[in-house]
């Protein structure tokens, strides 16, 4: 995987996440899509398992650092789990189909939501309840955001998939090869 291109993509995605996300918010302003998550799914779909795991871990740590919460780990662990899920599932999927990125973005959003809320709720129970923290409500908002991420994932798929060659990902090996 081209690391420089990954760094640029992560930088742009995080910039869009922090700058553009409020403009995409709907409802009461809390339901918004993630623009980093489709990038993580894309990396996990095409990169080698090791590179995909590192890439998602780095994206998760960066999200933790820019989340405004003084804790590193909830997003990092969630993105790790997301990477492993996509790596396991990608063998039976048509990776270059935008719908795959959409579906995995929604699935990834659900995984990330559950892990992040679980970790933050655990911390709230152990170290005290931060103001305004309601685990159930948080999960609901984030799950709706995961569905919304799927919509954004489709648009991002149209941008990301043509860039696959530039990243220098390993060639796709078909699991069910034709018998000679």
């Amino acid at each position, binding site marked *: *995987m*081209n*690391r420089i291109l990954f760094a640029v993509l992560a*930088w*742009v995605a*995080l*910039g*869009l*996440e*922090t*700058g*553009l*996300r*409020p*403009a*995409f918010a709907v*409802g*009461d*302003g*809390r*339901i*918004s899509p*993630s623009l*980093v998550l489709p990038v993580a799914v894309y990396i996990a779909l095409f*990169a*080698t398992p*090791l*590179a995909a*795991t*590192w890439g998602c*871990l780095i994206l998760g*740590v*960066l*999200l*933790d*650092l*820019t*989340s*405004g*919460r*003084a*804790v*590193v*780990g909830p997003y*990092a*662990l969630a993105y*790790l789990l997301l990477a492993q899920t996509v790596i396991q599932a990608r063998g039976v999927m048509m990776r270059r189909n935008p719908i795959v990125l959409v579906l995995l973005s929604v699935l990834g959003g659900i995984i990330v939501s559950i892990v992040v809320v679980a*970790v933050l709720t655990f*911390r709230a129970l*152990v*170290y005290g309840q*931060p*103001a*305004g*923290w309601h685990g159930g409500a*948080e999960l609901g*908002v*984030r799950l709706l*955001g995961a569905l919304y991420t799927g919509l954004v994932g489709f648009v991002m798929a149209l941008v990301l998939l043509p860039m696959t060659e530039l990243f*220098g990902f390993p060639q796709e090996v078909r699991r069910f090869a034709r018998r000679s």
Partner: protein
Amino acid sequence: MSAGTQKPSAARRALPLTIAATVVVVFLPPGWLGWVGWFGDLAALAIAPASQPAKMVGDWLDPARSRAVDADAEALAERLSQLELLLHQAQERAGDLERRLAEVEEWRLLYPDVDIDPLGASVIGATSDPTDRELIVRAGSKHGVTPNTVAVIRRDAQLVGRVTRASTLTCRVRPITDPTAPRIEGRIMFDAEGNGLRCSLKPAGDGTLVGDVGESVGPRPIEPDQIEAGMTVRLDDNTWPAHAQMLVIGHVESVTDDPDKGLRKIVTVRPSVELDRISELVLWRVPSPEEDG
């Protein structure tokens, strides 16, 4: 990660250690995670060149809704708001002085004559967490910004929030409407003399603040039934700095009966703009005694 024989194995060896370290860090107590803020500020600064243009595009696509009708009306409204603020602050100050005239020395300690040094700053983004949205502002400790510095919008003396953390070049402001922001005490203003009703407001999560209506303030007794939509609600909270008192929290959007407490009223207050969507604000810095000297 890619070609080579040494690097992939090093990356592979480091991965379990990194994951283990992450698992340990995520369960550390808050007191041990002070260093996270420093790295967070660094990350915010690094992505600012990407997030600020994105925010400008976002503001252009979906501008923060304001009640101003046109430029002239906006200018007049701005002037009126400034005058109202000055009037209310002067009245509040006069009232305090009257009450505390006999305790001049104590008054000086409790409510010193604080000078404000306003600093206009642009909002370069928001934190990435969807349910905890602080504003990242391009002004930091280098510019005299400290935690608890009050942030306002210049146009209509609208209170935005307080600085939660200040790094060298940026700071984070938590809007009063953020769901994680603490409860805030306000006064529903009935006239220019400062008569009104206290209210204790909590962010509702949809850009409004909701809370119980309390007792009457001022010589004229006022009943909660007299509250009407559109009335201005101003800050009247001792946990905020003296110079922030009487700033505008918002305007009454609706008044309903409290289903749990019989005759009590619940008021919904909406700021004049969406506070998590603003693109610039003013930080009210307080000069330190050394600077004065």
